[in-house]
């Protein structure tokens, strides 16, 4: 008779494998629809677009961000750029002032109120039919906007289009591992796009029809994850979100574990709290795959990581306890242990094979995500490093986010 912990363990493994297989089957169904365009894209009509860049202490990156916007392959008279300084305390304002001379650029200064307030200020001043935000630490490929706009041209019912976000100039190990994670994200989001179940419209450039905000209201605080909140709100109102895999945006990623932890804590807190806020949608079939797959998937991943972490801590505690017992019994006695390899002791329980097959599916996700962003089928050793690095640190931001949720504390923006 299986014990309850091992039953829970296998149920969670089943659900995790299910999620990966679901993605893979979706890929298999839609693989021919994935287009990766090369060269210049043309539209029959170029609608006017407003892109807002909310800035808070971004003096190091904002110049390059705005330059990338000015270099877009899109008619200048159809592109309005709003640079909004959200009460920066560094030299951000001075830098954005340099761009005032451009006809299609408007600059604003306001008291610090958080990213969503800066976006809403942009919304108030926007007069175009399309609206988007671009984080001031991200750089946009010159073809991105036109490729995103092609989705709106093709399908009248599309209300928002998200881009492929990838890592800008990774320089150290932590950033290289994140790069593979972002590749994986590109694959998963593309599949969620096919399923009509995207749950985040990323801050590094998502373009919306202005109608979305006219109908549903402006951005909300969304537990510091306004990009997830607006996506959930759109899903709740059955507004279609697409994913443009060949619209590339390069974003700056944390270089240290500490900054990565802070960023992910904010994301995780947003995920948990937005899921709680939109729990009414959960498992209701009228909300489609978003309600039946995306939201439950988030819950499954939270449950799996928490459970596995608990199990690892328990096993480690058990191991330490037995070592202490031995230490008490015989003291410090070092001996040369016979390290010969005996295949007998390799764990061959069925979960091992399931975990390995899940890893293979995740590595496939990274490889195909990379193919979608870089056009190459290529394996990288960082794809393997992703597993230990994220398995070790992810539980900490997850547990802290759960803890903060319980105490209703909000994490700092950065």
């Amino acid at each position, binding site marked *: 008779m299986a014990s309850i912990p091992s039953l829970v363990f296998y149920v969670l493994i089943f659900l995790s494998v299910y999620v990966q297989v679901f993605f893979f089957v979706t890929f298999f169904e839609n693989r021919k629809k994935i287009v990766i365009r090369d060269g210049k894209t043309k539209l029959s009509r170029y609608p006017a677009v407003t892109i807002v860049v909310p800035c808070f202490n971004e003096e190091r990156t904002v110049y390059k961000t705005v330059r990338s916007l000015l270099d877009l392959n899109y008619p200048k008279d159809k592109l309005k750029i709003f640079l909004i300084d959200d009460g920066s305390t560094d030299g951000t304002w001075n830098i954005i002032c340099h761009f005032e001379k451009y006809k299609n650029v408007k600059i604003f200064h306001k008291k610090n109120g958080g990213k969503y307030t800066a976006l809403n200020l942009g919304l108030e001043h926007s007069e175009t039919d399309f609206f988007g935000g671009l984080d001031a630490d991200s750089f946009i490929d010159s073809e991105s906007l036109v490729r995103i706009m092609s989705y709106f041209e093709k399908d009248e019912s599309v209300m928002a289009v998200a881009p492929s976000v990838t890592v800008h100039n990774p320089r150290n190990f932590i950033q290289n591992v994140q790069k593979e994670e972002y590749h994986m994200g590109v694959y998963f989001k593309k599949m969620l796009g096919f399923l009509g179940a995207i749950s985040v419209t990323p801050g590094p450039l998502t373009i919306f029809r202005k109608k979305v905000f006219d109908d549903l209201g402006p951005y909300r605080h969304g537990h510091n994850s306004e990009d997830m909140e607006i996506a959930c709100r759109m899903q709740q109102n059955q507004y279609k979100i697409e994913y443009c895999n060949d619209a590339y945006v390069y974003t700056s990623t944390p270089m240290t574990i500490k900054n990565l932890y802070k960023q992910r804590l904010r994301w995780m807190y947003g995920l948990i709290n937005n899921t709680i806020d939109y729990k009414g949608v959960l498992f209701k079939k009228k909300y489609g795959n978003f309600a*039946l797959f995306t939201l439950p998937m988030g819950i499954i991943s939270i449950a799996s990581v928490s459970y596995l972490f608990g199990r690892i801590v328990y096993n480690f505690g058990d191991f330490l306890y037995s070592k202490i017992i031995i230490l008490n019994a015989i003291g410090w006695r070092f001996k040369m242990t016979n390290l010969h390899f005996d295949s007998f002791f390799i764990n061959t329980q069925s979960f091992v094979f399931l975990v390995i097959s899940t890893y293979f599916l995740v590595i496939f996700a990274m490889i195909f995500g990379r193919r979608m962003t870089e056009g190459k089928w290529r394996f990288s050793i960082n794809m393997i490093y992703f597993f230990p690095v994220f398995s070790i640190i992810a539980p900490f931001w997850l547990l802290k986010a759960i803890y903060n949720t319980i105490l209703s504390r909000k994490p700092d923006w950065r």
Partner: protein
Amino acid sequence: MNNNIDWKKYLIVFFITMSLFLSASYVSNYFSNKKINQLKSIQDKIAIDILSSETQFSLLSELSCKNIPDSIFSDQLRELGSKLEWSQSNLGATDEVSYLKKYYALLQIKDYLLAKKISTRCGVKSAFILYFYKTLDNCSECQKAWSVLTSLRDKYPKLRVYSFDYSTDLSAVSSMLRIYKIKDTMLPVFVIDDDVLTGFHSIEELESRVKESFKLQETKPIENERSSP
């Protein structure tokens, strides 16, 4: 809005996931069976070796102790013991594993009797510890005792330790429990030269028993030899 739910796909994915589960469990069973078979073949080999030694001993004992079979199976038995312990915790306490444990207990008893006979008749310097423990109820004293015995066995290669799980359902083990009047509340129990020591005993205590009672020559541990100038 594309909110048509493709129920067929949810079902197909469920069946694919199920078949992955079944395949994983099939592969896992395959390896478990292989391991069980490996254990069986080790046990059979030890059984034949013991039987052969017994026969050889009977044949030669009339003549001299010169050609007595070198006592012999300690390492093999030890390896088998650790593999069985591992199997019990990783493959589960299946019927096959508990059958193998019984067989193992029996082999240990036979080895013990043979080695003791050789020791008495031919004056081979050996020491014997019978150790009784339990795997149930998380016996931390047993864990400590086992680490002491492992350490002693590393230090004294001629010390022969035979360990018996109290719950082994085998008449030979039950007989030993009866002979030494061992009850489960007394565990762990050491039997050294027919003296029954109950509960945990420190390494120093057991070491002096091993040295004094059995007049065992101490062989220097390898580490000490290495570290000495």
